[in-house]
């Protein structure tokens, strides 16, 4: 009996962690609206979403408390040995360390490598999406409010960037600036901010014609204040929904770039790079180097997409 109740509260806690759901007993936080509350209710009802939220929560926890969970630091070249390379899952090393998911061709413990890889993926996803969001929102707002030549210039720039295939631009950039997590983030920001700018502009344009905006202008407020205090909060919903899905696509992009050999340094493998290096060994039967990082990547992206998708449905004004 006690167990079940604990489990329930645990799951509630997970739900709160995941989307910041307000606790019912407390006063509703600022910005809380009946629509938003209904949306969260709809979100919570889906078991698949619940599962995704739990998975995401676990990944975040693992990411934050890494050294505690991971048996080895896969980025420290002295902590493993090439003499232990390509051991099958469950084997033991000379010194008796057990490798639950086997080792890669450098003798790295796969489990640790996957944990660290998940952290890199999350970091890249969140930071690059965050930065792209900030840039995109600002550009979109400025374009919508300023209009005229500035708008034309900014939006042509957006069209220009969106006109190129994402991977191509990122590949070329990384080929020029070199490898590294920071550089991958930069490349992803460059290819993704334009999406947000376009959505933000269209949302802000429709808000701009509303009476409250006109009222604000008539009160004598300057453009920046109207932009950020009045228009932005009211047109942010659409952009935020896109952002949740874009986190997943940023992670996929990082994995793709690393798989193609231009992403993170080879001595600090991310999930994509682990899959790539194991890819060569599939014919030889050393499946674990590719398979397990692949599964980890799949779970992460699937969960993010599911949550993002449900969020979109829940926020759809036609349904509320």
């Amino acid at each position, binding site marked *: 009996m006690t167990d079940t109740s604990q489990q329930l509260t645990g799951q509630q806690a997970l739900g709160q962690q995941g989307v910041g759901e307000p606790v019912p007993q407390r006063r509703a936080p600022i910005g809380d609206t009946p629509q938003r509350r209904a949306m969260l209710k709809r979100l919570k009802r889906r078991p698949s979403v619940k599962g995704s939220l739990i998975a995401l929560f676990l990944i975040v926890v693992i990411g934050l408390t890494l050294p505690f969970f991971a048996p080895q630091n896969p980025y420290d*070249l002295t902590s493993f040995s090439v003499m232990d390379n390509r051991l099958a899952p469950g084997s033991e090393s000379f010194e008796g360390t057990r490798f639950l998911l086997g080792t890669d061709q450098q003798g790295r413990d796969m489990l640790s490598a996957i944990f660290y890889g998940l952290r890199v993926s999350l970091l890249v996803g969140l930071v690059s999406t965050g930065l792209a969001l900030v840039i995109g929102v600002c550009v979109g707002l400025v374009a919508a409010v300023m209009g005229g030549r500035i708008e034309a210039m900014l939006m042509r720039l957006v069209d220009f960037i969106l006109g190129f295939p994402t991977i191509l631009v990122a590949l070329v950039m990384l080929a020029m600036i070199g*490898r590294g997590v920071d550089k991958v983030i930069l490349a992803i920001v460059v290819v993704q901010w334009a999406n947000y700018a376009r959505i933000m502009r269209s949302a802000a344009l429709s808000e701009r014609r509303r009476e409250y905006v006109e009222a604000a202008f008539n009160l004598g407020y300057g453009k920046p204040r109207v932009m950020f205090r009045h228009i932005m909060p009211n047109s942010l919903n659409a952009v935020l929904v896109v952002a949740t899905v874009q986190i997943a696509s940023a992670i996929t992009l990082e994995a793709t770039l690393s798989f193609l*050999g231009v992403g993170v340094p080879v*001595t600090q493998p991310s999930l994509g790079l682990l899959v790539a290096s194991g890819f060569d060994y599939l*014919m*030889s039967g050393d499946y674990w180097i590719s398979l397990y990082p692949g599964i980890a990547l799949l779970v992460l992206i699937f969960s993010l997409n599911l949550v993002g998708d449900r969020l979109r449905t829940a926020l759809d004004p036609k349904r509320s």
Partner: protein
Amino acid sequence: MKRLHLMAGTALVASLSAGVATAESLTIGLASEPTAVDPHYHDVAPNNALTRHIFSALGALDANQNVVPALAKSWTNEDDKTWVFNLRDDVTFSDGSKFDADDVIFTFCRQVNNESAVGATGKEVANMAAVEAVDPYTLKITTKEVEPLLPELLAQIMVLSEGITEHGDISFDLENQCGVTGAWPSVEDFNNGSAAIGTGPFVLKDFTKGSKISLARNENYFGTKPEWDEVTFVPVPSAGPRLAGLLSGDYDMIENPAARDIVQIEKNDGLEYTSASSNRVIFLQMDVGRDETPFVETEDGSNPLQDVRVRKAISMAIDRQAIVDRIMDGFAEPAYQFIPDGMFGAIENPAELEYNPEKAKELLAEAGYPDGFKLTFHATNDRYINDSQVAQAIAQFLTRVGIQTDLDAMTRSIFFSRRSGREFSFSMGGWGSSEGGAASFLRQYVTTGNPDLGIGGSNYGGWSDPAFDKVIIEAIQTIDEAKRTELLQQAEQMAVDEMGFIPIHFESSIWAFRKGLNYEGRKDQYTLADEITSDAAN
């Protein structure tokens, strides 16, 4: 049980050999596609291997890279700069015309009139003061500088037929087009077959880029005729599909299956493989020429790589045998010098470069770096066999003795252009010594750069040892073979002692094929169909 096994085995061999006897054609999966049939188009291994099927040269390099007679029966030195080549008088081209000295002179002229080529051709011809046909089958060549390697160099210049373009009397008169009146043949003329007229063991039937190359036996070949009526080369760059094609029987032989997939071939009763150590050495090149180097971090800003103790420590930190066993799956040999044993000028039984991390740490401390230093190591990730894995293992070994190593592995085009811009402090390269044995690597990499003599062109680390330079320059200008061997061995030993470059391993090439075929393998990594034999024919 054992007998049953044996019987089954015999039956299998019998049925396979029966198959060979009926179909005398061979299909080979190539790891890397030749870009042209023109033998003077681009000096890279896949092209060279293909053109050696269709053309021959004055000499030929055997599987161990020793020069043997081919179109020339013999050659002698009249003096240091004058060579006389006695040509065979029984050779005809695939179009039926007779081969003589004029074809060789025409070939030399085409080397310098070769606009479609990639990179410069004709550096050997540039060193020729005069070439004269004493009679149709005697050729006299006078060089400007002493060039003891002339027979080796000429073994790489495939001889064309003068009949492929219009001409008057052929003579070595470079200013007047050597007597050629028509247009010089271009790479397209060779690729479409019209100029692909040679004296090699095969004739070209079809060259379709990206798809296949078909050859048929040259019935008039002057050497040992190949066993195969027809040979088809299919380029399959990815190792996986190449192996799959062999397993499914589409190919009779494939080049370089991935070493890690050898277990698949061993498990299969119908397949065999052969491996040969190649002449390609994988080595570390260090920036020793500059007092401050961009990718090394030390407390006092000095360049530790200039200290021979540090270089020795680096060598001692690396477990070459572990790299060979664990990364190369045994298909490589630890390198203790820059060319494999048995090649011209190699040190016989060189002293093993020991793996001793404890001593490496001591040496570092002695050199004033008890806590090591920081290093960024640059390598390719798509040029040599398992290159980025080898580089990672080296980074692992160096970090363990205190040299904190970051690895930056990049694609070859970026790596090579940055390396020639001397951007790196510490990088990994590879070099296959084709002609001249030890001289090839030493004169190209280890000698102080000297464009006038055409040496030291790849000395990107600024290595300079005057004592060494003296020996190597004397060696490459010495005609007497015994003396040159001695000088080259001395130079090789000096290079190894000073550790300006650190040898890691020699790559091995692998050929996998169906049972019943035999291929010895070659040091230059070429796949030559005329050297493939079948059990059925023997």
